[in-house]
């Protein structure tokens, strides 16, 4: 084996800016690189990456590899896999990290296969084992009922990190780093899958992931109509509405507001769960909330085991009075 060095992160860019997950990757990456005596590298793929590359350095990167190519402007699984494989083979890092995002979920296992490594998906903690300098990746398993700590034997040792589980550093605009252009030419024959359309379905108003207040309804709401009162509460608090998978699967709300392991990860100041049983796969998406309020008619519901404030009762009785009181309190 060549020298077992190098820590590469693959960042993401949204509207020309470094995406929050990329800053989080650099936050944890910095710690791991320092513990190993490695440089911290970030690869950015796409078009118009100059601004994001600068930000990456401010957030902790030593070197930013920029693979600019109009063909990479939008994510295509095959062209991204080909381009990232090419760069990663040249750099041959010992550790390779990505975000557990639309891109990371899709790309990381492909890269693991193409590079001969192995990846631990959706990690909530990463550390360097002191004796071996190997990556130890902690990931929730069984929907979050347990955590497993993985050690990868193959190279690169790969992991994807769960959004909001690791903190970004304060950006420092005077930090020094290198921006290096790399060839990201993709052989057209490698591209078998075509993306023909992309449809955005973002809810209006405050973005769920960024909201300070999240009001989530579960199957206990009984139907789409009942979500109106959750929308009202969200409006009163200045927040956004979320849902459990059950409520999404029943077609009451758009699946893009699903909170949980396979939905969005939120960490608001206040998370209000109404008619939500508190399955671990759901809690995975909101356990980072500062405060959790639960309203559920079943006193035995799991949600009361993770909530900080709770009322046992039917939401039909609970919500109107709660909304009214919140309005009053916030007006004073």
């Amino acid at each position, binding site marked *: 084996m060549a020298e077992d060095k190098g820590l590469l992160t693959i960042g993401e860019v949204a509207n020309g800016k470094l995406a929050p997950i990329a800053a989080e990757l650099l936050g944890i990456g910095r710690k791991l690189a320092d513990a190993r005596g490695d440089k911290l590298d970030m690869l950015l793929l796409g078009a118009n990456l100059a601004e994001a590359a600068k930000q990456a350095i401010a957030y902790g990167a030593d070197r930013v590899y920029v693979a600019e190519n109009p063909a990479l402007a939008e994510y295509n699984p095959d062209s991204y896999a080909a381009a990232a494989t090419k760069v990663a083979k040249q750099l041959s890092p010992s550790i390779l990290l990505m975000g557990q995002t639309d891109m990371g979920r899709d790309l990381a296992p492909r890269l693991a296969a193409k590079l001969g490594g192995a990846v631990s*998906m959706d990690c909530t903690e990463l550390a360097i084992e002191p004796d071996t300098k190997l990556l130890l990746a902690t990931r929730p398993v069984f929907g979050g009922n347990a955590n497993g700590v993985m050690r990868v034997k193959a190279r690169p040792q790969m992991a994807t990190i769960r959004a909001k589980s690791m903190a970004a550093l304060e950006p420092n605009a005077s930090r020094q780093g290198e921006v290096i252009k790399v060839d990201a030419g993709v052989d057209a024959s490698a591209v078998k899958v075509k993306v023909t359309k*992309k449809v955005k379905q*973002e809810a209006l108003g405050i973005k769920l992931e960024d909201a300070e207040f999240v009001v989530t309804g579960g199957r206990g709401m009984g139907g789409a109509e009942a979500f109106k009162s959750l929308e009202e509460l969200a409006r009163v608090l200045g927040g956004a509405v979320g849902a459990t998978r059950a409520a999404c699967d029943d077609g009451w709300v758009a699946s893009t507001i699903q909170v949980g392991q396979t939905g*969005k990860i939120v960490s608001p100041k206040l998370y209000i769960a109404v008619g939500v049983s508190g399955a671990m796969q759901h809690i995975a998406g909101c356990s980072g909330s500062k405060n959790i309020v639960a309203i559920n008619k079943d006193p035995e519901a799991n949600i009361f085991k993770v909530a900080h*404030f709770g009322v046992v009762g039917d939401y039909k009785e609970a919500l109107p009075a709660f909304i009214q009181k919140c309005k009053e309190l916030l007006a004073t």
Partner: protein
Amino acid sequence: MNIVVCAKQVPNPEIPMGKFKIDAQALKVIPPEGIAPVISPFDEQAIEVALRIKEKNPGSKITALTVGAGSAGDILKHALSMGADEGIFLSDPAFEGSDAFGTAYILSKAIQKLGNVDLILCGRQAADWDVGQVGTLLAEDLGIPLITIARKVEVLNGKLSVERALIDGYEVLEAPMPSLVTVSNEVGLPRLPTGMGIIMAARKKVAVWKAQDMGIDVAKVGKNAARSEMVKLYIPVREAKCEMFQADTVAEATVKMAVRLREAKVI
């Protein structure tokens, strides 16, 4: 069309928190007593997708595969009762402890043995270890195109048209066949087996293929071939203490809670 669905048996993922037990020493999850294991929900949805495609393409054949030991093959009967045509249980002591790479390799050998496959469907991730990689690694092993996390799968003019669920919407992708697609819950609820389906499934024989039946190199499977190892398994401590509000009516209780939230400067 020849459609293969890869599925896995898992402990029921919806059990109450308190019923979930592990053996931290052995790094194993203890199956909950008295609660039967199930087919992993996303895999069940993959079967549903296969059945919908078959309905539009009469004459198609659906083969369900699973890798496992002991009663793990029972889910093949479930697949048959939903309407799959054939089930094959890939089982050999050598497979025990395989990681996602090993499992994908076993499945690839079974699919090569079947031959002539047009579409392979997998769940996006299994509801036990949540690894979410077997589908991808299988496509890589077979060298065929891959689309992950589908919310809709259709065959149009001999090509696949797939909607891939994104966190803020979806995208439409087109792929030639054969391809592999991993399926997400947004495709909709799987159908329940019919009484007739259950009777038919009971009559069908499930074939068992061992390593040598598929020409498997046993050095590439099992615990020793795994590229990652688990070094620790634990149940995280959750120390939240819930402050409960009570009053004569539910409405009054929530009013007390709102006041408390304001006092605590939460709202």
